[in-house]
């Protein structure tokens, strides 16, 4: 055997692991793939017998190891991939995208991976839980990051809405407490993630899409998740720290057809304060 033959074999194997189109060509047209390499007839024969399925799975394994950092942001997603036995296949399929995003930031890589998992699971009802969980964990990671970065505590004296007269109440300014996001899910995603992580998950029982509100703890630690309604979502979206209660109600009434009387919105504000979603403070304008 020529002394360099081992090096050439390693070059070809390396290429299989970092160049997915080459691996495909080696599988479908080995003569074409190997034509440029000067190899003995014996080595060519051995290369043609190479278990390319195994090499492909190994490539997926390498991709998986290179994404170990995802355990911090997508722990339930990775746990599910493992449970379904599709971890290495999925990371193998992700390899071309991984190589195309090599120079990007961790955040970009995360976004690409989440998009890939969603795309992968879209047409596979058996992986409905996967789609739900990866979307939830991605939203949650974004919230934790924003909660860690932002200073959301208003430097104003907060008040208890129940103590205020209706005219005084309307002059106050609602401020979002912490950061939140909204998403439609077929089940309670927070509960599903908890079940997966504590090992009690058995099967996914999904239903009609419902709206859930995810709220990050002020220190960026945990996420609270609870079902909500579209009116609440609308009201929260209108609270910007500048609008008064009256202005928020006016903006909301302009957006809904069956406009309720302004006073009926008071319940929303009181409940939102009690749930820790907002605080009410006395603004500059009285």
């Amino acid at each position, binding site marked *: 055997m020529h002394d360099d033959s081992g090096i050439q074999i390693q070059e070809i194997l390396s290429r299989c692991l*970092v160049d997915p189109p080459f691996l495909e060509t080696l599988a479908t047209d080995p003569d074409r793939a190997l034509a440029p390499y000067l190899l003995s007839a014996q080595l060519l024969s051995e290369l043609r017998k190479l278990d390319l399925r195994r090499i492909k799975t*190994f490539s997926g394994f390498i991709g998986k190891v290179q994404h170990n950092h995802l355990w911090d942001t997508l722990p339930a997603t*990775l746990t599910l991939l493992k449970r379904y036995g599709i971890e*290495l296949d999925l990371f193998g399929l992700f390899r071309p995208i991984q190589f195309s995003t090599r120079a990007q930031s961790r955040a970009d890589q995360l976004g690409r991976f989440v998009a890939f998992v969603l795309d992968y699971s879209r047409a596979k009802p058996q992986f409905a839980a996967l789609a739900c969980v990866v979307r939830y964990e991605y939203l949650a990671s974004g919230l934790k990051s924003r909660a860690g970065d932002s200073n959301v505590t208003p430097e104003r004296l907060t008040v208890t809405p129940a103590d205020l007269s209706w005219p005084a109440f309307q002059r106050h300014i609602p401020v979002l407490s912490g950061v939140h996001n909204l998403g439609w899910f077929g089940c309670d995603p927070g509960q599903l993630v908890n079940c997966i992580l504590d090992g009690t998950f058995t099967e996914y029982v999904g239903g009609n899409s419902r709206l859930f509100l995810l709220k990050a703890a002020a220190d960026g630690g945990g996420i609270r998740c609870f079902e909500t309604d579209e009116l609440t979502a609308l009201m929260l979206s209108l609270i910007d720290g500048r609008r008064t209660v009256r202005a928020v109600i006016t903006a909301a009434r302009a957006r809904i057809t069956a406009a309720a009387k302004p006073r009926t919105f008071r319940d929303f504000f009181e409940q939102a304060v009690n749930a820790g979603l907002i605080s009410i403070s006395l603004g500059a304008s009285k």
Partner: protein
Amino acid sequence: MKPAPREKPSVGLAYSSTVLRFAEANREEVDYLEVPFELLRHAPDTIEHIDFPILLHCASLSLAGSVACSEQTLSQIAYWIAKTRTPWLGEHLAYITSKRTEAGPIPEEYAPGEPYNIGYTVGPVMNEAAVERIAKSIERYGGRLQTPLLIENSPIYFESPGSTLSQSKFIAAISERIDVGLLLDLSHFYLSSRLIGYDPLVELEELPLSKVVEVHLSGIDERADGSWDDHSCAAPKLVHEMLAHLLKIARPRAVTLEYNWSSRFPHSLLKDELQRVRALLQETNA
């Protein structure tokens, strides 16, 4: 920092930020942390947070490859050897890069013009030519770095064309050709045994066990399509049995538990595993 003890085998953990938190809370359980050079190169501040003796591990020399490690990388490794006061440098008996002698008929988008960089250590073609090439690399790098090198057996996930030696005979041949210590990864050895079909307890004795300086243990992911290295779960029973067997015939100076892939590896399990290894060392008077 105190140097790693010489007489009694030390028991340590492969570094991750989660493992560090565990180690800080359980100082009596952890003698040292094994830290990858690649982490220190990219995040040098990491060292400021580690108040434990350090064993430096490395995957950058690509001992079995054809691309020489750059002088810049060697200088950085030398710097971290001095800075960490590691008693040795553990390096994979593997390649991580390969020369690109032929681009092939298919246009490549991945790192054009650069060597193939797998980003993961791959077990080499095992033949006499490789023994000679690797021995020369060990001689060159050992001289340049002025610290003992240990070679770590890689898991064999597929049989490379061109290989004419078993892994044990390959390692033994290198050991005969040059004086080098062995970092015996028992989980890797077990994985190789699964693929090739030998009894790991029997094959173990084919290795130059008197050269074993450090031992690695990690988990195994048993799947329908094969067994894979897995640092996110505990080592299986057989790997602990292999350690017990090894300790009857060899005297390693350090046993490292590599449970560093998942931030969700339970601390209670880490503690159990450390205590299990210490109990074994006690039983075998190692």
